[in-house]
Structures are given as C-alpha cells and as structure tokens.
C-alpha cells in the first residue's frame, strides 16, 4: 500500500475534527497542545498514513499538506 505523511499548519487548525472523521486509516487525532488561536490542532499520532489526501479535501482551513512517499 502507498505510504504518505501529512504536515499540519497548526496555527490554521481550528480543531473541527472533520479530517479525523474523514481519515480512512484513522491515524489522526486532536492533540493536547494549544495553538495561537486557542484551538487544539490535529496531529498524526501513529504510522500508517497512505497519503490519500482525504483529510486535506475535508479541511475548511487548508491547514493540511499531504506527501506521498515512493519506495524507489
């Protein structure tokens, strides 16, 4: 299966959780940190991201960047 990773621009995140619900492999969660706006940004807490980009498609604040890792 394809591998990927995400980068969250934490200050843009509003902790709505739409990406957590959209992730098909459930590797996202709301973190315990607090960003400059007072929200708890989302984070990838375990391995297994497949780089599908569903989290980015559901993000209302364009806070997520998605990378796909190829083995070659």
């Amino acid at each position: 299966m394809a591998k990927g990773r995400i980068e969250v621009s934490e200050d843009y995140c509003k902790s709505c959780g739409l990406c957590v619900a959209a992730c098909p492999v459930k590797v996202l969660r709301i973190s315990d940190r607090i960003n400059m706006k007072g929200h708890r940004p989302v984070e990838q807490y375990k391995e297994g991201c497949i780089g599908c980009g569903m989290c980015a498609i559901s993000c209302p604040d364009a806070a997520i960047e998605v990378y796909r890792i190829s083995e070659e």
Partner: protein
Amino acid sequence: MSETKIYSRPESWMKEVHTHYCPGCGHGIAHRLICELIDEFGIQDKTISMAPVGCAAMMYDYIDIDYVEAPHGRAPAVATGIKRVYPEKIVFTYQGDGDLASIGMAEIIHAANRGENITVIFINNAIYGMTGGQMAPTTLIGQKATTCPLGRDPQLAGYPIRMCELLASLETPSYIERVSVARPKYTIKAKEALKKGFRYQMDKKGFSFIEVLSSCPTNWGLTPIKSFEWQLENMVPYYPLGIFKDFE
C-alpha cells in the same frame, strides 16, 4: 525513497490569513475549492468576484482576487454590469441562502432569465448564519431557529424554497447543479461541478448556477461532524443532489 507533495495550501488563498469562520464551517471548504480551481485555470489576475452580505462578506480577505462588495442580495445585478463591461474577465458571485434566496430573489431570477454569462455559487446552510440563526427561506420544516423556536411551521412560513428546481424551470440557464461538501466524496464532486461552471463561463455558454449544501454548526447547535451528518439525513432528502439543467 522520494516524496511528492500531493496537496498543499492553494496559491490564491491569501498568505498568513486565518479565516473568521467557525470551526468546521462549509464556507472554508467552498473557498478552498474555488482557490484550487483559480490556480488550476490560472485565472487569478482576471477573476472578479461579488462578495455577498452574510458570513462570507469578508471573503475578499481570504481569496486573492478582485472583488466588488455587493449590497444585500444584489450580487447578480452587480455581476451583470461588470461582465457586460469586461466580457473577457471571469465573474462569479458567491452568496448564501439569506442573501440569494430571500432579499436577492428578484436579482437572481432575472439574471438567470437573461442568461448572463456569469457563475453563481449558492451556499445553502438552511439558516441565517451571521445574524444569529434566524429562519431563512431554505430552513427545513420543523427545523428550529431563533425566529421559529418551535420549528418552522408551513402554515405560517410556507415551505422551504428549492432554488435549483426554481431556476431550472427557466429557459436560459445553461447549467444548474446541486452539490454537497459533507464528505470528501461529495466534495470531489462539488469541485467538478464548480469547474464546469467556470468552464462554461469561459466558453461563453451562459448562466451557470451551483448550489452547495453547507453546514452551520454554531447555529444548528451541533458539532462539525454531527452537523454534516444532520445535513445528509435531513437536507439531502429535501434538496436532492444532482444536475438539474445542462445544455450539453
């Protein structure tokens, strides 16, 4: 090992800007789709949008294109003037349901009936968001709002207006579709619909209208995830998704 970036913040989204929208608001998703399309078409320097009155009134702070702030509901009339003066520009309006279906009903129907070569993006969240959750023309039967605390009663307020069906009864509009942003699969379809709307305008095919079913977690009193579930359970049966008119 090599890495490819498959998704990043759109170029036409203003840099270093935090939107004022509530967490989980569908406006942000719709804005992002428009930004992605402006980047894909490469039309950032020749796009003019009419900002509405409503939650999206400050959208000129978020998408880096030119704007005219239209009075409440009058965006299609302003867009008509701009498109007729600058036919080579891409002109779109972005309106909520209180703006388009209530006070702006006359403007949208006549702009559609004249077949103006503009794209109208209609965000339907079944409530007045910015002013504090009053009943909108699109509020569902039984749905609670601050001006109908016991739920909308059709004896007093009539039935919710289906704008797509209403405009599809006219002869001239070339493209009318209703989409949703409740799940990634619907969001992908919504992007395709918006893309078609912009492409028809570039090809001078006439009036295109895309209704986007959105959410209002704050005024519906639900969490962002629950509000999109509520939308799929309650709004989609009354406002069916799909293409209502396509000249092709």
